[in-house]
Protein backbone atom coordinates (compact mmCIF):
# COMPACT_ATOMS: atom_id res chain seq x y z
CA UNK A 1 0.00 0.00 0.00
CA UNK A 2 2.75 2.44 0.96
CA UNK A 3 4.64 1.74 -2.29
CA UNK A 4 1.48 2.43 -4.27
CA UNK A 5 0.93 5.66 -2.41
CA UNK A 6 4.52 6.64 -3.18
CA UNK A 7 4.12 5.76 -6.86
CA UNK A 8 0.88 7.73 -7.16
CA UNK A 9 2.42 10.69 -5.33
CA UNK A 10 5.33 10.67 -7.74
CA UNK A 11 3.25 10.29 -10.90
CA UNK A 12 0.84 13.03 -9.88
CA UNK A 13 3.71 15.28 -8.74
CA UNK A 14 1.92 15.64 -5.41
CA UNK A 15 5.22 16.25 -3.56
CA UNK A 16 5.31 19.71 -5.10
CA UNK A 17 2.20 20.77 -3.18
CA UNK A 18 2.74 24.06 -1.33
CA UNK A 19 -0.53 23.74 0.57
CA UNK A 20 -1.57 27.16 -0.68
CA UNK A 21 -5.19 26.02 -1.11
CA UNK A 22 -5.72 27.53 -4.57
CA UNK A 23 -7.16 24.19 -5.67
CA UNK A 24 -9.89 24.27 -3.03
CA UNK A 25 -10.58 27.94 -3.66
CA UNK A 26 -11.12 27.27 -7.38
CA UNK A 27 -12.80 23.86 -7.20
CA UNK A 28 -16.37 24.07 -8.58
CA UNK A 29 -17.47 21.35 -6.15
CA UNK A 30 -15.88 22.86 -3.02
CA UNK A 31 -17.78 26.05 -3.73
CA UNK A 32 -21.03 24.28 -2.84
CA UNK A 33 -19.89 21.17 -0.99
CA UNK A 34 -17.93 22.53 1.95
CA UNK A 35 -16.95 19.04 3.12
CA UNK A 36 -14.83 18.49 0.06
CA UNK A 37 -11.39 19.98 -0.26
CA UNK A 38 -8.82 18.88 -2.86
CA UNK A 39 -6.02 20.19 -0.65
CA UNK A 40 -7.16 18.00 2.24
CA UNK A 41 -7.45 14.97 -0.03
CA UNK A 42 -3.91 15.51 -1.22
CA UNK A 43 -2.47 16.05 2.23
CA UNK A 44 -4.21 12.87 3.40
CA UNK A 45 -2.34 10.98 0.73
CA UNK A 46 0.95 12.61 1.67
CA UNK A 47 0.52 11.90 5.38
CA UNK A 48 0.01 8.19 4.77
CA UNK A 49 -3.76 7.89 4.98
CA UNK A 50 -4.00 5.89 1.77
CA UNK A 51 -6.03 3.11 3.46
CA UNK A 52 -8.77 5.51 4.49
CA UNK A 53 -8.58 7.44 1.24
CA UNK A 54 -9.35 4.48 -1.01
CA UNK A 55 -12.43 3.61 1.05
CA UNK A 56 -13.67 7.19 1.21
CA UNK A 57 -16.65 8.13 -0.94
CA UNK A 58 -15.18 11.62 -1.37
CA UNK A 59 -12.63 10.05 -3.68
CA UNK A 60 -15.38 10.07 -6.33
CA UNK A 61 -16.44 13.67 -5.77
CA UNK A 62 -13.74 15.12 -8.03
CA UNK A 63 -15.00 16.00 -11.52
CA UNK A 64 -11.49 15.89 -12.98
CA UNK A 65 -12.38 19.17 -14.66
CA UNK A 66 -8.77 20.29 -14.42
CA UNK A 67 -9.48 23.71 -12.94
CA UNK A 68 -7.14 23.10 -9.96
CA UNK A 69 -4.29 22.05 -12.19
CA UNK A 70 -4.65 25.23 -14.24
CA UNK A 71 -4.49 27.35 -11.09
CA UNK A 72 -1.90 25.32 -9.18
CA UNK A 73 1.40 27.23 -8.88
CA UNK A 74 3.38 23.95 -8.69
CA UNK A 75 1.49 22.13 -11.46
CA UNK A 76 0.30 19.29 -9.23
CA UNK A 77 -1.75 16.88 -11.35
CA UNK A 78 -4.72 16.51 -9.07
CA UNK A 79 -6.95 14.84 -11.69
CA UNK A 80 -4.21 12.31 -12.30
CA UNK A 81 -3.96 11.72 -8.57
CA UNK A 82 -7.68 10.96 -8.39
CA UNK A 83 -7.51 8.66 -11.42
CA UNK A 84 -4.63 6.60 -10.05
CA UNK A 85 -6.13 6.42 -6.57
CA UNK A 86 -9.47 5.29 -8.01
CA UNK A 87 -7.74 2.56 -9.99
CA UNK A 88 -6.03 1.48 -6.77
CA UNK A 89 -9.35 1.59 -4.88
CA UNK A 90 -11.07 -0.53 -7.54
CA UNK A 91 -8.21 -3.03 -7.42
CA UNK A 92 -8.80 -3.35 -3.68
CA UNK A 93 -12.51 -3.96 -4.22
CA UNK A 94 -14.01 -0.58 -3.40
CA UNK A 95 -16.89 0.47 -5.65
CA UNK A 96 -18.26 3.98 -5.91
CA UNK A 97 -21.95 4.79 -5.69
CA UNK A 98 -22.88 5.09 -9.34
CA UNK A 99 -25.56 7.42 -10.67
CA UNK A 100 -28.47 6.00 -12.69
CA UNK A 101 -28.18 2.67 -10.88
CA UNK A 102 -24.86 2.02 -12.61
CA UNK A 103 -26.60 1.31 -15.90
CA UNK A 104 -24.04 3.16 -18.03
CA UNK A 105 -21.09 1.37 -16.45
CA UNK A 106 -22.90 -1.95 -16.94
CA UNK A 107 -23.37 -1.17 -20.64
CA UNK A 108 -19.69 -0.33 -20.91
CA UNK A 109 -18.61 -3.50 -19.16
CA UNK A 110 -20.79 -5.61 -21.44
CA UNK A 111 -19.13 -3.77 -24.34
CA UNK A 112 -15.86 -5.23 -23.18
CA UNK A 113 -17.14 -8.77 -23.90
CA UNK A 114 -15.37 -10.44 -26.82
CA UNK A 115 -18.48 -11.79 -28.52
CA UNK A 116 -20.52 -8.63 -28.53
CA UNK A 117 -22.41 -8.05 -31.79
CA UNK A 118 -24.41 -4.91 -31.33
CA UNK A 119 -27.53 -4.16 -33.28
CA UNK A 120 -27.27 -0.40 -33.52
CA UNK A 121 -29.78 -0.48 -36.36
CA UNK A 122 -29.83 2.52 -38.60
CA UNK A 123 -28.93 4.97 -35.87
CA UNK A 124 -27.29 7.41 -38.26
CA UNK A 125 -30.39 7.56 -40.47
CA UNK A 126 -30.64 6.94 -44.18
CA UNK A 127 -29.80 10.37 -45.54
CA UNK A 128 -26.07 10.38 -44.72
CA UNK A 129 -23.15 8.79 -46.58
CA UNK A 130 -20.97 6.40 -44.61
CA UNK A 131 -18.52 3.67 -45.56
CA UNK A 132 -17.26 0.49 -43.95
CA UNK A 133 -13.61 1.42 -44.46
CA UNK A 134 -11.75 4.61 -45.11
CA UNK A 135 -8.95 6.99 -44.26
CA UNK A 136 -11.18 8.99 -41.97
CA UNK A 137 -13.31 7.32 -39.35
CA UNK A 138 -16.14 8.82 -37.34
CA UNK A 139 -16.26 7.48 -33.79
CA UNK A 140 -19.71 8.04 -32.32
CA UNK A 141 -19.31 6.26 -29.00
CA UNK A 142 -22.30 5.58 -26.76
CA UNK A 143 -24.75 8.02 -28.40
CA UNK A 144 -27.55 5.49 -29.23
CA UNK A 145 -27.40 4.20 -25.64
CA UNK A 146 -27.82 7.70 -24.22
CA UNK A 147 -31.01 8.02 -26.26
CA UNK A 148 -32.45 4.89 -24.66
CA UNK A 149 -31.40 5.73 -21.08
CA UNK A 150 -32.24 9.44 -21.05
CA UNK A 151 -35.39 9.44 -23.15
CA UNK A 152 -37.46 10.61 -20.17
CA UNK A 153 -35.68 13.99 -19.97
CA UNK A 154 -35.92 14.54 -23.72
CA UNK A 155 -32.32 13.82 -24.70
CA UNK A 156 -31.71 13.37 -28.41
CA UNK A 157 -28.10 12.25 -28.44
CA UNK A 158 -28.38 10.23 -31.66
CA UNK A 159 -29.02 13.51 -33.42
CA UNK A 160 -25.48 14.62 -32.54
CA UNK A 161 -24.09 11.64 -34.46
CA UNK A 162 -26.39 12.19 -37.44
CA UNK A 163 -25.48 15.88 -37.54
CA UNK A 164 -21.76 15.17 -37.27
CA UNK A 165 -21.85 12.79 -40.24
CA UNK A 166 -23.98 15.24 -42.23
CA UNK A 167 -21.40 17.95 -41.62
CA UNK A 168 -18.59 15.65 -42.68
CA UNK A 169 -20.56 14.84 -45.85
CA UNK A 170 -21.05 18.55 -46.48
CA UNK A 171 -17.28 19.16 -46.57
CA UNK A 172 -16.88 16.26 -48.99
CA UNK A 173 -15.89 13.47 -46.61
CA UNK A 174 -17.54 10.05 -46.51
CA UNK A 175 -16.49 8.81 -43.09
CA UNK A 176 -16.04 5.19 -42.15
CA UNK A 177 -18.30 4.15 -39.26
CA UNK A 178 -17.74 0.98 -37.25
CA UNK A 179 -20.92 -1.13 -37.02
CA UNK A 180 -19.80 -2.70 -33.74
CA UNK A 181 -17.98 0.24 -32.20
CA UNK A 182 -17.68 0.08 -28.45
CA UNK A 183 -17.52 2.66 -25.73
CA UNK A 184 -14.15 4.41 -25.55
CA UNK A 185 -13.86 3.44 -21.87
CA UNK A 186 -13.56 6.94 -20.43
CA UNK A 187 -16.17 6.46 -17.74
CA UNK A 188 -14.90 3.07 -16.65
CA UNK A 189 -11.38 4.40 -16.37
CA UNK A 190 -12.46 7.34 -14.24
CA UNK A 191 -14.49 4.96 -12.04
CA UNK A 192 -11.27 3.03 -11.53
CA UNK A 193 -12.14 -0.05 -13.63
CA UNK A 194 -8.75 -0.37 -15.31
CA UNK A 195 -9.21 -3.97 -16.45
CA UNK A 196 -12.32 -3.41 -18.55
CA UNK A 197 -10.89 -0.15 -19.88
CA UNK A 198 -7.92 -2.07 -21.30
CA UNK A 199 -10.31 -4.59 -22.91
CA UNK A 200 -12.32 -1.81 -24.55
CA UNK A 201 -9.14 -0.07 -25.67
CA UNK A 202 -7.79 -3.21 -27.34
CA UNK A 203 -11.10 -3.92 -29.09
CA UNK A 204 -11.42 -0.37 -30.36
CA UNK A 205 -7.83 -0.03 -31.55
CA UNK A 206 -8.15 -3.34 -33.38
CA UNK A 207 -11.42 -2.33 -35.06
CA UNK A 208 -10.18 1.13 -36.04
CA UNK A 209 -6.95 -0.25 -37.47
CA UNK A 210 -8.87 -2.94 -39.37
CA UNK A 211 -11.03 -0.23 -40.98
CA UNK A 212 -7.84 1.32 -42.33
CA UNK A 213 -8.34 4.65 -40.62
CA UNK A 214 -5.53 7.23 -40.53
CA UNK A 215 -7.61 9.88 -38.78
CA UNK A 216 -10.36 9.38 -36.21
CA UNK A 217 -12.93 12.09 -35.63
CA UNK A 218 -15.13 12.19 -32.54
CA UNK A 219 -18.07 14.40 -31.68
CA UNK A 220 -17.53 13.73 -27.98
CA UNK A 221 -14.90 15.61 -25.99
CA UNK A 222 -14.39 12.64 -23.68
CA UNK A 223 -13.85 10.12 -26.47
CA UNK A 224 -11.36 12.59 -27.92
CA UNK A 225 -9.35 12.82 -24.74
CA UNK A 226 -9.47 9.08 -24.12
CA UNK A 227 -8.47 8.05 -27.62
CA UNK A 228 -5.77 10.68 -27.96
CA UNK A 229 -4.26 10.72 -24.47
CA UNK A 230 -5.28 7.70 -22.42
CA UNK A 231 -4.92 4.99 -25.08
CA UNK A 232 -1.20 5.65 -25.69
CA UNK A 233 -0.65 6.19 -21.98
CA UNK A 234 -2.11 2.84 -20.97
CA UNK A 235 -0.11 0.94 -23.55
CA UNK A 236 -2.31 1.16 -26.65
CA UNK A 237 -0.41 1.55 -29.91
CA UNK A 238 -2.46 3.97 -31.95
CA UNK A 239 -1.41 4.31 -35.57
CA UNK A 240 -3.93 7.05 -36.21
CA UNK A 241 -4.44 10.69 -35.45
CA UNK A 242 -7.38 11.67 -33.24
CA UNK A 243 -9.33 14.87 -33.80
CA UNK A 244 -12.38 16.47 -32.34
CA UNK A 245 -14.95 17.32 -35.01
CA UNK A 246 -14.58 21.05 -34.32
CA UNK A 247 -10.89 20.81 -35.23
CA UNK A 248 -11.56 19.00 -38.50
CA UNK A 249 -14.38 21.33 -39.51
CA UNK A 250 -12.18 24.26 -38.47
CA UNK A 251 -9.58 23.05 -40.98
CA UNK A 252 -12.27 22.85 -43.68
CA UNK A 253 -14.03 26.05 -42.73
CA UNK A 254 -13.63 27.45 -46.25
CA UNK A 255 -15.65 24.50 -47.66
CA UNK A 256 -18.30 24.75 -45.00
CA UNK A 257 -18.74 28.51 -44.84
CA UNK A 258 -20.62 28.93 -48.13
CA UNK A 259 -23.13 26.26 -47.18
CA UNK A 260 -24.21 27.62 -43.80
CA UNK A 261 -27.58 29.33 -43.80
CA UNK A 262 -28.58 32.23 -41.60
CA UNK A 263 -29.68 31.62 -38.05
CA UNK A 264 -30.86 34.13 -35.54
CA UNK A 265 -30.41 34.25 -31.80
CA UNK A 266 -27.74 34.69 -29.20
CA UNK A 267 -25.58 31.77 -28.14
CA UNK A 268 -22.71 31.15 -25.80
CA UNK A 269 -20.17 28.35 -25.81
CA UNK A 270 -19.63 26.03 -22.87
CA UNK A 271 -16.08 24.65 -23.01
CA UNK A 272 -16.20 20.96 -22.13
CA UNK A 273 -13.41 20.25 -19.60
CA UNK A 274 -12.01 17.39 -21.67
CA UNK A 275 -11.85 19.49 -24.80
CA UNK A 276 -10.66 22.73 -23.22
CA UNK A 277 -8.45 22.33 -20.19
CA UNK A 278 -7.46 18.73 -20.90
CA UNK A 279 -6.72 19.03 -24.62
CA UNK A 280 -6.30 22.79 -25.09
CA UNK A 281 -8.91 23.17 -27.84
CA UNK A 282 -10.64 26.51 -27.27
CA UNK A 283 -10.88 28.41 -30.53
CA UNK A 284 -12.10 25.94 -33.24
CA UNK A 285 -15.67 25.63 -31.85
CA UNK A 286 -15.89 29.42 -31.52
CA UNK A 287 -14.69 29.86 -35.12
CA UNK A 288 -17.41 27.48 -36.28
CA UNK A 289 -20.10 29.34 -34.33
CA UNK A 290 -18.79 32.62 -35.71
CA UNK A 291 -19.14 31.26 -39.24
CA UNK A 292 -22.93 30.95 -38.95
CA UNK A 293 -24.34 34.15 -40.45
CA UNK A 294 -26.62 36.15 -38.17
CA UNK A 295 -25.69 34.25 -35.01
CA UNK A 296 -24.48 36.39 -32.14
CA UNK A 297 -21.81 34.62 -30.08
CA UNK A 298 -21.48 35.92 -26.54
CA UNK A 299 -19.02 34.87 -23.84
CA UNK A 300 -19.89 33.89 -20.30
CA UNK A 301 -17.95 35.48 -17.44
CA UNK A 302 -15.96 32.28 -16.99
CA UNK A 303 -14.83 31.13 -20.39
CA UNK A 304 -12.03 29.19 -22.06
CA UNK A 305 -9.50 28.13 -19.43
CA UNK A 306 -11.66 29.47 -16.60
CA UNK A 307 -14.79 27.73 -17.85
CA UNK A 308 -16.89 25.93 -15.21
CA UNK A 309 -17.60 22.21 -15.53
CA UNK A 310 -21.10 20.88 -16.20
CA UNK A 311 -21.18 19.42 -12.70
CA UNK A 312 -20.96 15.66 -13.16
CA UNK A 313 -18.45 13.32 -14.72
CA UNK A 314 -18.21 9.68 -15.68
CA UNK A 315 -21.77 9.01 -14.42
CA UNK A 316 -20.52 8.68 -10.87
CA UNK A 317 -21.16 11.69 -8.75
CA UNK A 318 -24.49 13.29 -9.56
CA UNK A 319 -25.92 14.92 -6.44
CA UNK A 320 -27.48 18.19 -5.27
CA UNK A 321 -24.12 19.92 -5.59
CA UNK A 322 -23.99 18.92 -9.27
CA UNK A 323 -27.35 20.54 -9.79
CA UNK A 324 -26.17 23.70 -8.01
CA UNK A 325 -23.10 23.86 -10.24
CA UNK A 326 -25.27 23.35 -13.33
CA UNK A 327 -27.86 25.97 -12.42
CA UNK A 328 -25.06 28.40 -11.48
CA UNK A 329 -23.41 27.88 -14.83
CA UNK A 330 -26.65 28.29 -16.78
CA UNK A 331 -27.42 31.50 -14.83
CA UNK A 332 -24.07 32.80 -16.04
CA UNK A 333 -25.20 32.13 -19.60
CA UNK A 334 -28.45 33.96 -18.90
CA UNK A 335 -26.54 36.93 -17.47
CA UNK A 336 -24.40 37.02 -20.61
CA UNK A 337 -27.66 37.44 -22.53
CA UNK A 338 -27.54 34.13 -24.35
CA UNK A 339 -30.69 32.20 -25.20
CA UNK A 340 -28.85 28.98 -26.06
CA UNK A 341 -25.85 27.29 -24.49
CA UNK A 342 -23.86 25.45 -27.13
CA UNK A 343 -21.51 22.69 -26.10
CA UNK A 344 -19.27 20.23 -27.88
CA UNK A 345 -19.69 17.22 -25.61
CA UNK A 346 -22.78 14.97 -25.35
CA UNK A 347 -22.27 14.66 -21.59
CA UNK A 348 -22.47 18.42 -21.00
CA UNK A 349 -25.54 18.40 -23.24
CA UNK A 350 -27.22 15.65 -21.21
CA UNK A 351 -26.31 17.13 -17.82
CA UNK A 352 -27.56 20.61 -18.68
CA UNK A 353 -30.67 19.20 -20.34
CA UNK A 354 -31.38 17.37 -17.09
CA UNK A 355 -30.88 20.57 -15.05
CA UNK A 356 -33.44 22.42 -17.20
CA UNK A 357 -35.83 19.46 -17.54
CA UNK A 358 -39.39 19.93 -16.39
CA UNK A 359 -39.08 16.62 -14.58
CA UNK A 360 -37.02 18.45 -12.00
CA UNK A 361 -39.86 20.86 -11.28
CA UNK A 362 -40.22 24.44 -12.43
CA UNK A 363 -37.12 25.26 -14.54
CA UNK A 364 -34.95 27.80 -12.73
CA UNK A 365 -33.26 29.15 -15.84
CA UNK A 366 -34.56 30.04 -19.26
CA UNK A 367 -31.90 28.83 -21.67
CA UNK A 368 -31.85 26.10 -24.30
CA UNK A 369 -29.06 23.55 -24.56
CA UNK A 370 -27.76 22.50 -27.94
CA UNK A 371 -24.83 20.54 -29.28
CA UNK A 372 -22.43 22.28 -31.65
CA UNK A 373 -22.90 19.65 -34.38
CA UNK A 374 -26.69 19.84 -34.21
CA UNK A 375 -26.64 23.64 -34.40
CA UNK A 376 -24.30 23.60 -37.40
CA UNK A 377 -26.29 20.90 -39.19
CA UNK A 378 -29.51 22.86 -38.62
CA UNK A 379 -27.91 25.91 -40.17
CA UNK A 380 -26.78 23.68 -43.05
CA UNK A 381 -30.39 22.70 -43.61
CA UNK A 382 -31.57 26.31 -43.47
CA UNK A 383 -29.93 27.09 -46.79
Amino acid at each position, binding site marked *: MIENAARITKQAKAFYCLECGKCTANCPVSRFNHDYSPRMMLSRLLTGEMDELVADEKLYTCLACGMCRVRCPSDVRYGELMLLTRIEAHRLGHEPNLSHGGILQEIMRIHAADKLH*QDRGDWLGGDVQTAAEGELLYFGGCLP*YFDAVFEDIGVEAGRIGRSAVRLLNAVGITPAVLPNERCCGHDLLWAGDHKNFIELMNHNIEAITAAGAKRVVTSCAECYRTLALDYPRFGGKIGFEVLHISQLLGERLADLEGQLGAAGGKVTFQDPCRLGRHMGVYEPPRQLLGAIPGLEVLEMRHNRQASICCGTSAWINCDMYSKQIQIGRLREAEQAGAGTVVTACPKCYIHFTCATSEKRGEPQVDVKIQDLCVLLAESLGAK
Partner: protein
Amino acid sequence: MAKRKSKKDFEPRIVLFACNWCSYAGADTAGISRIQYSPHFRVIRTMCSGRVHPSFVIKAFRLGADGVLITGCHFGDCHYIFGNHKAVEKFETTKKLVKLLGLEEGRIGLEWISAAEGVRFGKVMDEFVERVRKLGPSPLTDGKRP
Protein backbone atom coordinates in the same frame (compact mmCIF):
# COMPACT_ATOMS: atom_id res chain seq x y z
CA MET B 1 -23.91 -29.53 -14.52
CA ALA B 2 -22.90 -32.05 -17.18
CA LYS B 3 -20.89 -30.82 -20.13
CA ARG B 4 -23.09 -29.82 -23.03
CA LYS B 5 -22.04 -30.69 -26.53
CA SER B 6 -24.67 -29.36 -28.89
CA LYS B 7 -27.50 -26.88 -28.97
CA LYS B 8 -29.87 -29.78 -28.48
CA ASP B 9 -28.88 -30.42 -24.89
CA PHE B 10 -28.68 -26.74 -24.08
CA GLU B 11 -30.03 -25.99 -20.63
CA PRO B 12 -30.71 -22.27 -20.27
CA ARG B 13 -29.56 -20.25 -17.27
CA ILE B 14 -32.29 -17.84 -16.30
CA VAL B 15 -32.33 -15.10 -13.71
CA LEU B 16 -35.73 -14.49 -12.18
CA PHE B 17 -36.51 -11.28 -10.32
CA ALA B 18 -39.54 -11.87 -8.11
CA CYS B 19 -41.27 -9.21 -6.04
CA ASN B 20 -41.51 -9.84 -2.33
CA TRP B 21 -45.27 -9.45 -2.03
CA CYS B 22 -46.75 -11.42 -4.95
CA SER B 23 -44.47 -13.37 -7.24
CA TYR B 24 -42.05 -14.63 -4.61
CA ALA B 25 -45.03 -15.82 -2.59
CA GLY B 26 -46.44 -17.25 -5.84
CA ALA B 27 -43.28 -19.34 -6.18
CA ASP B 28 -43.83 -20.46 -2.61
CA THR B 29 -47.40 -21.49 -3.41
CA ALA B 30 -46.14 -23.43 -6.42
CA GLY B 31 -43.72 -25.26 -4.12
CA ILE B 32 -46.28 -25.96 -1.41
CA SER B 33 -48.77 -27.24 -4.02
CA ARG B 34 -45.99 -29.52 -5.40
CA ILE B 35 -46.35 -28.20 -8.91
CA GLN B 36 -43.74 -29.51 -11.35
CA TYR B 37 -41.91 -26.91 -13.44
CA SER B 38 -38.54 -26.24 -15.08
CA PRO B 39 -35.69 -25.81 -12.61
CA HIS B 40 -33.57 -23.57 -14.85
CA PHE B 41 -33.84 -20.30 -13.01
CA ARG B 42 -32.15 -18.58 -10.08
CA VAL B 43 -34.50 -16.41 -8.06
CA ILE B 44 -33.56 -12.97 -6.79
CA ARG B 45 -36.11 -11.45 -4.46
CA THR B 46 -36.65 -7.71 -4.75
CA MET B 47 -39.00 -5.66 -2.62
CA CYS B 48 -40.88 -4.56 -5.75
CA SER B 49 -40.74 -5.24 -9.49
CA GLY B 50 -40.26 -1.48 -9.85
CA ARG B 51 -36.89 -1.88 -8.14
CA VAL B 52 -35.53 -3.92 -11.05
CA HIS B 53 -33.39 -1.33 -12.77
CA PRO B 54 -32.23 -1.96 -16.36
CA SER B 55 -28.70 -2.20 -14.95
CA PHE B 56 -29.65 -5.38 -13.03
CA VAL B 57 -30.79 -7.02 -16.25
CA ILE B 58 -27.70 -5.95 -18.20
CA LYS B 59 -25.48 -7.15 -15.37
CA ALA B 60 -27.21 -10.53 -15.37
CA PHE B 61 -26.48 -10.88 -19.09
CA ARG B 62 -22.89 -9.81 -18.56
CA LEU B 63 -22.44 -12.48 -15.91
CA GLY B 64 -23.71 -15.18 -18.23
CA ALA B 65 -27.51 -15.33 -18.06
CA ASP B 66 -29.33 -16.64 -21.13
CA GLY B 67 -32.58 -14.97 -20.15
CA VAL B 68 -33.96 -12.61 -17.52
CA LEU B 69 -37.54 -12.66 -16.30
CA ILE B 70 -39.05 -9.96 -14.12
CA THR B 71 -42.21 -10.77 -12.21
CA GLY B 72 -44.48 -8.63 -10.04
CA CYS B 73 -48.00 -8.09 -8.76
CA HIS B 74 -50.94 -7.62 -11.12
CA PHE B 75 -51.99 -4.04 -11.85
CA GLY B 76 -54.01 -2.70 -8.95
CA ASP B 77 -52.51 -5.28 -6.58
CA CYS B 78 -49.12 -3.66 -6.10
CA HIS B 79 -48.12 -3.36 -2.46
CA TYR B 80 -46.63 0.05 -3.29
CA ILE B 81 -49.63 1.06 -5.44
CA PHE B 82 -47.69 2.14 -8.56
CA GLY B 83 -44.56 0.01 -8.31
CA ASN B 84 -45.47 -2.25 -11.20
CA HIS B 85 -46.26 0.76 -13.41
CA LYS B 86 -42.68 1.88 -12.76
CA ALA B 87 -41.56 -1.62 -13.67
CA VAL B 88 -43.28 -1.27 -17.05
CA GLU B 89 -41.53 2.07 -17.66
CA LYS B 90 -38.15 0.62 -16.75
CA PHE B 91 -38.82 -2.45 -18.84
CA GLU B 92 -39.28 -0.26 -21.93
CA THR B 93 -35.76 1.13 -21.43
CA THR B 94 -34.42 -2.36 -20.78
CA LYS B 95 -35.94 -3.61 -24.04
CA LYS B 96 -34.24 -0.86 -26.03
CA LEU B 97 -30.87 -1.49 -24.40
CA VAL B 98 -31.07 -5.25 -24.85
CA LYS B 99 -31.85 -4.74 -28.54
CA LEU B 100 -28.93 -2.32 -28.97
CA LEU B 101 -26.61 -4.83 -27.36
CA GLY B 102 -27.57 -7.36 -30.02
CA LEU B 103 -29.53 -9.72 -27.77
CA GLU B 104 -32.92 -11.07 -28.83
CA GLU B 105 -35.98 -9.45 -27.30
CA GLY B 106 -37.31 -12.89 -26.30
CA ARG B 107 -34.55 -13.20 -23.72
CA ILE B 108 -36.27 -10.76 -21.40
CA GLY B 109 -39.79 -10.95 -20.06
CA LEU B 110 -42.15 -9.14 -17.71
CA GLU B 111 -44.97 -11.15 -16.13
CA TRP B 112 -47.53 -10.61 -13.39
CA ILE B 113 -48.02 -13.44 -10.91
CA SER B 114 -50.04 -13.10 -7.72
CA ALA B 115 -49.32 -14.92 -4.46
CA ALA B 116 -52.17 -17.34 -5.05
CA GLU B 117 -51.20 -18.29 -8.60
CA GLY B 118 -48.91 -21.25 -8.01
CA VAL B 119 -50.12 -23.01 -11.12
CA ARG B 120 -49.62 -19.91 -13.21
CA PHE B 121 -46.08 -19.52 -11.78
CA GLY B 122 -45.17 -22.98 -13.04
CA LYS B 123 -46.75 -22.30 -16.43
CA VAL B 124 -44.95 -18.97 -16.88
CA MET B 125 -41.61 -20.54 -15.96
CA ASP B 126 -42.08 -23.45 -18.37
CA GLU B 127 -43.07 -21.13 -21.20
CA PHE B 128 -40.16 -18.75 -20.60
CA VAL B 129 -37.59 -21.54 -20.34
CA GLU B 130 -38.94 -23.02 -23.60
CA ARG B 131 -38.72 -19.63 -25.30
CA VAL B 132 -35.09 -19.11 -24.25
CA ARG B 133 -34.21 -22.71 -25.09
CA LYS B 134 -35.37 -22.07 -28.67
CA LEU B 135 -33.18 -18.96 -28.87
CA GLY B 136 -30.13 -20.92 -27.75
CA PRO B 137 -27.24 -19.78 -25.57
CA SER B 138 -26.68 -16.07 -25.08
CA PRO B 139 -24.49 -14.72 -27.91
CA LEU B 140 -22.30 -13.06 -25.29
CA THR B 141 -21.25 -16.33 -23.69
CA ASP B 142 -21.86 -18.91 -26.39
CA GLY B 143 -22.83 -21.45 -23.79
CA LYS B 144 -19.65 -21.02 -21.78
CA ARG B 145 -19.57 -19.45 -18.38
CA PRO B 146 -17.62 -16.19 -18.73
